[in-house]
C-alpha cells in the first residue's frame, strides 16, 4: 500500500460513488413519495446497460448519445410498470407487498434479458472506455470522469426540478406527508407515477456507466440492488441528500478498504458499515427519527 494507491482509490470512489448516488436517489425518491421499496431497481440498471449495449453494438450509437434514447425509454417502462402493477398494491402491508411485486417484476425482466442477451458477461465499449488521463501522478479513466460529470449534471437537473419547479414542490410535499399533500389539492397519484418514472429513468444513465466499467449479465442486478438498498438505508430512507452523501461515502470506503486490506474485505465492509451505523443510529445517518404519536 502506498499514498498514491490510497489517493487513487479515494478519487475513484468519489467518481464511481456519484453514479451510485444517482441510482440511489431514484430509489429513495420512489420510497419517499410512494412508500414502495423497489427491489427491481437493480434489474432496471442492468436493463439500461443492455439497452446502451444494443444501441452501440447494433446501431453504432455512442453510449452518451444513446442516453437520449435509453433515459426516455426507461421512464416509459417505469410508468408502465407503475400503472400496471404498483397501483394495485393496497392494504396495511404495503411496503412488504411492494417488495414482492417489484421482485417478481425483476425476475420476469431477468428472464427476458437472459433470453435476449444470454447469460454471457458483456461490457460496453467506446473509444473513451479504456483511455485515461494522468492527473497528480494518477491515471484516471475517461469513463469514470465522464460518468462523474454525467451524474453531477443529472443530479443537478433533478435538484433544480425538485426545488425550482411547481412539480417539484408537489413532489416534496408528497415526500413530507402524502395525506396533507392530497388535502391541499396535489394529485398524489400522478406525482407518484411520474416519480416512479423518474426514479427508473436515472437507472438508464447509471446502467450505462456501470456497464462500461464492469462486465455484467442479468444476475449482476442482485449485487447492485443490495448495494443501493444499503445506501438509501444509510442515508435515511426517503432522504435525497442522504442518498447522495451515503452513495459517495460508501463506494469510497469500499474502494479504500479494498486497497488497504484487500478486495475480500471491500464488499464485506459495505454491509458491515451499515450494520454498525444502524446499531448506533437506527434512523440512518440523515433520516429523521419517526415520531408517530397521534
Amino acid at each position, binding site marked *: 500500500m502506498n499514498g498514491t494507491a490510497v489517493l487513487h482509490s479515494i478519487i475513484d470512489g468519489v467518481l464511481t460513488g456519484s453514479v451510485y448516488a444517482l441510482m440511489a436517489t431514484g430509489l429513495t425518491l420512489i420510497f419517499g413519495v410512494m412508500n414502495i421499496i423497489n427491489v427491481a431497481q437493480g434489474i432496471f440498471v442492468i436493463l439500461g446497460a443492455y439497452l446502451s449495449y444494443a444501441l452501440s453494438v447494433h446501431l453504432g450509437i455512442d453510449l452518451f448519445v444513446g442516453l437520449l434514447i435509453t433515459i426516455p425509454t426507461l421512464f416509459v417502462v417505469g410508468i408502465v410498470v407503475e400503472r400496471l402493477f404498483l397501483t394495485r398494491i393496497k392494504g396495511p402491508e404495503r411496503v412488504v407487498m411492494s417488495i414482492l411485486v417489484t421482485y417478481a417484476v425483476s425476475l420476469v425482466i431477468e428472464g427476458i434479458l437472459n433470453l435476449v442477451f444470454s447469460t454471457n458477461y458483456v461490457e460496453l465499449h467506446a473509444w473513451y472506455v479504456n483511455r485515461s488521463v494522468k492527473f497528480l501522478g494518477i491515471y484516471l479513466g475517461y469513463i469514470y470522469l465522464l460518468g462523474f460529470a454525467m451524474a453531477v449534471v443529472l443530479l443537478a437537473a433533478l435538484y433544480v426540478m425538485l426545488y425550482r419547479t411547481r412539480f417539484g414542490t408537489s413532489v416534496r410535499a408528497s415526500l413530507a406527508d402524502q395525506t396533507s399533500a392530497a388535502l391541499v389539492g396535489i394529485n398524489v397519484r400522478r406525482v407518484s407515477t411520474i416519480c416512479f418514472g423518474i426514479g427508473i429513468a436515472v437507472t438508464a444513465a447509471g446502467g450505462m456507466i456501470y456497464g462500461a466499467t464492469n462486465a455484467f449479465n442479468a444476475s449482476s442486478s442482485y449485487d447492485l440492488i443490495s448495494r443501493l438498498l444499503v445506501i438509501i438505508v444509510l442515508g435515511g430512507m426517503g432522504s435525497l441528500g442522504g442518498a447522495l452523501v451515503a452513495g459517495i461515502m460508501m463506494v469510497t470506503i469500499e474502494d479504500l478498504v479494498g486497497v488497504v486490506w484487500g478486495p475480500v474485505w471491500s464488499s464485506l465492509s459495505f454491509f458491515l458499515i451499515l450494520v454498525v451505523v444502524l446499531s448506533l443510529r437506527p434512523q440512518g445517518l440523515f433520516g429523521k427519527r419517526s415520531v408517530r*404519536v*397521534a
Partner: protein
Amino acid sequence: MTTLLSVDRVSKSFGGLQALSECSLNVEKGSITGLIGPNGSGKTTLFNVITGYEKPDSGAVTFEGAEITRASSSRVFALGVGRTFQITRIFARISVLENMLVATQRDEGWLRGLTRSKSSKSELTSAMEWLDFVGLGRLADQPAGSLSFGQRKLLELAYVLVADPDVILLDEPAGGVNLTLINEIAEKIQSLNRSGKSFLIVEHNMEFVMNLCDRVTVMHQGADLVSGTPSEIRSNPLVLDAYLGGSDEDGEEVS
C-alpha cells in the same frame, strides 16, 4: 383533596415551535379535570409528555408524589396513568377481546408472557365485564378493525380501564361521535368517577366539559392560562380573549 397528578412548569419544543412553555396543571384525587384551549395550544403534547410518549425539555411531572418526568410510556401506564388518543389507537387485526387482554398486563415481567396462556380466568372475566360496561360485550370475538368509529372509542376506553388505572387521560372523548354516544360516554365517566377514578379530559365540546368537570384548566400558546371551576372559567375574560385570538370557531362555542 390531595393532588394525584401534577405537572410543574413543563416545556417542550419541536425545532423552532414551542409546543409547551412552562405549563403547570394539577389533577386532584377523585376529580374530573377538564383541559381546554384553542387548537395548537399544546393539549395533546401535554398528554404525550405526561404519559411518556414524548420527553419534555424541562419541568417535572409527578404522580402520587413520585416523579415520572422521563419515564417510559409503559412505566407510566404501569404506575396507573391510562390514556386514550384523539385518533383512536386500537389493535385492528386482533379481536376486541384480545385488545382487552393486551392491556391487562400492566406490570408483568416479559418472560412470563412466554409461559402463560393469553389470559387467566380473572383477567378474562374482568375484560368481559369492562366490555359489557361500554356495551361491546357481544362484539368480543369480532376483529377490532370492523368496529365503527364510536365503538373504537369505547373499546379504547375499555382496554384502558381493564388495567385499572387511577387516573385516565381522555383526548377528545366526544370528538366526532353522535349526541347519544356523547351522553353515554359522559355517563360512563361519571359512574367511573363515583367509583374513585380521576380523569383529565381534553375536549372541544364546551357543554360536555362544563357539565362534567369539577375543575377546568385553559391552555393558551403552550402555557396554562387560568384554572378554576367551570363557572369561573365561563366568566373569565382572559379565556374569551384566548379563544377569539386563537381560532374563531372555538370562540363561538364558549359564548
